[in-house]
């Protein structure tokens, strides 16, 4: 059972859709965690790539070591130098080992979440102490240092050379036909992204979500009402970073390679920021829409750009980024507050409140007064 091949104007539709879904799912998950931090709590996290890279590094280094250990593959004393051989042997063995295939994904996800949470906890220390602009730059610098560290420190993932490949846990499904293992990877990412969406939306609608907005809008007032803003910020950073780490791990299992320069601050810090800004900070539906539009523009332009080569005097590979950026700026010019604005906190529906309090008390009061979202 191989995946069908649908070629349309020279574009392999199935392959394109799988590619698109991978990127969309990952961007959705990462942007939603950023929305939780920035949109709801007001923490300007400019170090997002740090947590994603941490999770991805965990997936790359740990899965390779575990595969070598479980299958007792001879590493000849140097795992990094012999990684290609280890990966080949491991992939051949994973084909017949469903327990390992599922286990390694779950184990890596747990460890990546833990490492991400530790990084989040560490960055909560400056997040509480520093003013917003200082904090953003500090996290940017820390993320940059992490990348420099990965380049310099070879035992982990081989420095700038990287390790040649990661054991593919989805190789178990490779007997079913070409492309099926990629589809499984995509489905896992999609399921993860949906779970993250439901989770973040649940937080946003809960009393905790209203606490987050209260802390963002007026720290002193929320403190006066007895909300522990330090603890809340800490928790938000830990949770968001753990999810980012898991997204990084899934990314590694999808692209099957790790190296110090695989994750750049443009792709995993500035692009999620762009998605949150064009989608609308503090609105999960908006962020999902923003991620969709962003990914569609990015991938769509990459597919259709060659049709325009005859009409453009410069290399179309570079020109696509100019078009891409112009389109994003156009979106922002038309809708400066993002595609969907932040809505007033959702409370229980009126009918439910009436059953709780009895209808007489609520006859003339408006339950959810329309709040003007004032950013100034």
């Amino acid at each position: 059972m191989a995946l069908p091949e649908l070629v349309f104007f020279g574009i392999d539709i199935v392959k394109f859709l799988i590619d698109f879904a991978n990127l969309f799912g990952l961007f959705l998950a990462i942007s939603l965690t950023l929305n939780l931090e920035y949109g709801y709590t007001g923490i300007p996290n400019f170090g997002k790539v740090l947590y994603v890279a941490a999770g991805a590094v965990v997936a790359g280094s740990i899965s390779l070591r575990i595969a070598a250990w479980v299958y007792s593959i001879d590493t000849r004393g140097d795992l990094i130098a012999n990684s290609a051989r280890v990966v080949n042997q491991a992939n051949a063995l994973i084909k017949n080992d469903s327990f390992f295939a599922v286990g390694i994904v779950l184990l890596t996800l747990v460890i990546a979440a833990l490492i991400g949470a530790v990084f989040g906890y560490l960055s909560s220390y400056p997040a509480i102490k520093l003013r917003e602009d200082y904090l953003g730059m500090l996290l940017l610098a820390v993320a940059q240092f992490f990348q420099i560290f990965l380049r310099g420190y070879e035992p982990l993932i081989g420095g700038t050379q990287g390790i040649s490949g990661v054991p593919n846990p989805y190789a178990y499904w490779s007997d079913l036909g070409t492309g099926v293992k990629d589809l499984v990877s995509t489905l896992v990412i999609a399921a993860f992204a949906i779970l993250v969406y439901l989770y973040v939306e649940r937080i946003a609608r809960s009393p905790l979500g209203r606490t987050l907005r209260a802390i963002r809008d007026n720290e002193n007032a929320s403190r006066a009402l007895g909300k522990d803003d330090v603890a809340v910020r800490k928790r938000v950073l830990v949770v968001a970073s753990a999810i980012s780490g898991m997204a990084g791990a899934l990314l590694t299992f999808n692209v099957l390679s790790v190296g110090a320069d695989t994750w750049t601050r443009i792709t995993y810090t500035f692009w999620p920021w762009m998605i949150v800004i064009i989608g609308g900070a503090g609105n999960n539906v908006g962020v999902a829409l923003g991620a969709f539009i962003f990914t569609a523009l990015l991938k769509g332009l990459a597919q259709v750009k060659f049709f325009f080569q005859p009409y453009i005097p410069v290399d179309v590979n570079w020109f696509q980024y100019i078009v891409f950026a112009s389109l994003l700026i156009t979106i922002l010019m038309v809708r400066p507050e993002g595609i969907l604005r932040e809505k007033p906190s959702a409370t229980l529906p009126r009918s439910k409140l009436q059953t709780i309090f009895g209808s007489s008390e609520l006859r003339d009061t408006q339950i959810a007064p329309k709040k003007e979202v004032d950013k100034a």
Partner: protein
Amino acid sequence: MFFVAPLTLAILTVALYLLLTRTKFGVAMRASIENPPLARVLGINVERVYMISWLFAGGLAGLAGSYHTIWLGGRTSTGSELIVEIFASSILGGLGSIYGAVLGGLMIGVSEASLTVYISQGFGLIGTGIIVALLLLSGVFLFLRKKKRARLLGALLAGLGAYVAADVALGFPTGFFSRDLVSGFGPGAFVYQKGVPLIIMVIALLLLPKGLISVEWKRLLRLRRVRSDGPT
């Protein structure tokens, strides 16, 4: 050629200082960033002030870029390589101050250019100094601070200092870090050349959350004098 950039820096610092404190427009600039609604009430066109300050900022950054290219050459990726250091140096000094930017840029630049050399070739005397400072600091935390957490930190520092000192005294039987501190990390340290200023910036910001410029040296000195004069 090498004095052109410092000279420009000096002239620009003076000119910016005069602009921000002695001209009406400079005062309007500061007013509109401090409190936009109030500035509007006083008849300042805040949007236009923002626009003109963007103009200044872009022009000055372009000037810096032209000097950078004369001295170090340029590529298409120069901007994205430099951007983190630019952020770091403007933040390290402290926002809202010209001297802060000068100080921050100086610290980031010097630490990137020369500190890495020290790290790779060994600190020698400086390394010994660091060990002594570690022990002194641990003593301060252990015996002078009353807080439990400070004492814990002091105990940790004392342990680390004692370990390093013992290691050096015995001729590096176990130490990896202490040996490198004195004899140098070798050429491998140059991989971290871009990272050293970032680490310095992070540590500085954790100690001084509003940048170097926020330290009130006069008050600090006065406090110390009062404390030494007071009853012990």
